[in-house]
């Protein structure tokens, strides 16, 4: 066996967390919206007038961080840290296959992140807000999004496989 939790029990824990979110907040879990608001805040610090005049970020007002999903995002990081420290899994490392260059892995992580950041805004959510939360409510668009993630991922997986080769 491995040092992580039984995946099915971890899934139940995640599902119960999502259910509590719906029961109390009335909305599901989310990650990319919180991150996008942090991005809006950063852009706002660099170019305040331009950001406030922009159509998408501008709609979030002068203080984009005053939003519940920003707090959820912060909570997610805190929870991750607590659990990693408790499980002895915390520590600075760049995850990659042994035979793969660290620079290339860094470039892939950065580029992949940029694509995901863009796609999350286009699809109005990510794996948390759309696939998981919308999927649990059986919303058509969320399930379409989820299936397309796997289609895109499997189609592209072969090209970037070497980053995990030991």
């Amino acid at each position, binding site marked *: 066996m491995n040092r992580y939790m039984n995946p099915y029990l971890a899934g139940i824990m995640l599902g119960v967390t999502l259910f509590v979110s719906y029961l109390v907040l*009335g909305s599901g879990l989310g990650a990319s919206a919180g991150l996008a608001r942090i991005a809006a805040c*950063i852009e706002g610090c660099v170019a305040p007038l331009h950001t406030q005049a922009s159509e998408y970020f501008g709609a979030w007002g002068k203080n984009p961080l005053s939003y519940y*999903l920003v707090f959820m995002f*912060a909570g997610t990081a805190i929870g991750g840290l607590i*659990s990693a420290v408790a499980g002895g899994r915390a520590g600075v490392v760049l*995850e990659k296959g042994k035979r793969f260059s660290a620079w290339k892995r860094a470039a892939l992580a950065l580029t992949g992140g940029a694509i995901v950041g863009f796609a999350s805004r*286009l699809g109005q959510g990510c794996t948390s807000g759309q696939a998981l939360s919308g999927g649990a409510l059986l919303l*058509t668009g969320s399930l379409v999004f989820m299936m*397309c993630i796997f289609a895109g991922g499997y189609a592209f997986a072969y090209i970037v496989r070497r980053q995990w080769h030991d």
Partner: protein
Amino acid sequence: MIETFFGADALGTHAAFLVSLLIGVSFGVALERAGFGSSRKLSGIFYGTDMTVLKVMFTAVITAMLLILYSAAFGLIGFDSLYLMPTVYGAQAVAGILFGIGFVMGGWCPGTAAVGCASGKADAFLFLAGAAAGSILFNELYGVVKPLYSWGESGVQFVYASLGVTRVLFAFIFTAVAIGSFWMAEWVEKKISKTGYYLNSPFLWAFSIVFIAAAGGLLAAADAPAENREALREINAALTQPLMPGRTEQMIMEVMQEGRDHIEPEDLADRLMMGDRLLTLVDIRPKAEYDAFHIRGAVNIEPAGILQLLREKKNAGMIVLYSNGMTHPAQVRDALHRQGYRNVYILTDGLDGFVERCLKPASLRAAPVTDEEVSKIRAWREYFSGK
């Protein structure tokens, strides 16, 4: 019935922020304990070496789904107090494919990267920096991508309604598919990386039986929820009473004048002729009157049958009610509004107004009519009265 922060329009309060933070902590712990603080583990699903993502995500989806559906069946929560994300077919399909490519390249998604970054993973930090840049890029390109962003906009759509099956039946099939996929995932792991520890284990058997039984029980439990019986009683009252206490004709007219809840006959006629699939037109007059004449495309509703039809359309598309005048549908609309329906509209001036404004021949009209209007009236008459 629980009042959610969303239902009370209070997601912007400090209390909601605190609750969100705590839910986030639980979310982060669950992700980390599942092993999602590792990009290598997350990527395993794309190479068949480690199917943890499928097991955890699909288990979470069916767990939350069953808990929500049981809560709804027992009247604990109503779907109207939940935030339902709209379906935008084209945008979400394109976004999904892009997301999948970015996911397999970067090895992370936003939630798991937050966990990875907090526990020291440098690639997670870079991924988050990239994602923030990607969000800014989206903002900058918003003017250009706007058509794509709204491509295939379809309002709130439930997959079971899209497929034409009931909610509980779909939930049962969905659960069965999930359980099947878990057995398959264990088998794939055994073949590819000699793991698949849970294949044929007593644990997976017990897990499978519990979930199938829970989904099966829902078929029985969700048949006639209490909230619907209550709603039906109220709608029946609205249909039979001349006027609701506390609500005068004048108050109804005030709401009408604000234009929030009605649709003009001309607008309705055009939508019907275009074959707008998001529109449900309901004739709430007695069946005999409906049989004598009704607007083409309308369905007649006996009070007892109204909920079966409308439940599928709740907050999805547009429900338009009409009777002869306006008072009667306004009462039904109010009753539905209290049940959380936010997409019910009334036809301005009712059937009488529709006949007067759309179907009355141009030659019989008192006000002068332009050539454009004449041809429009002719088209309406042809479509709606076959003349």
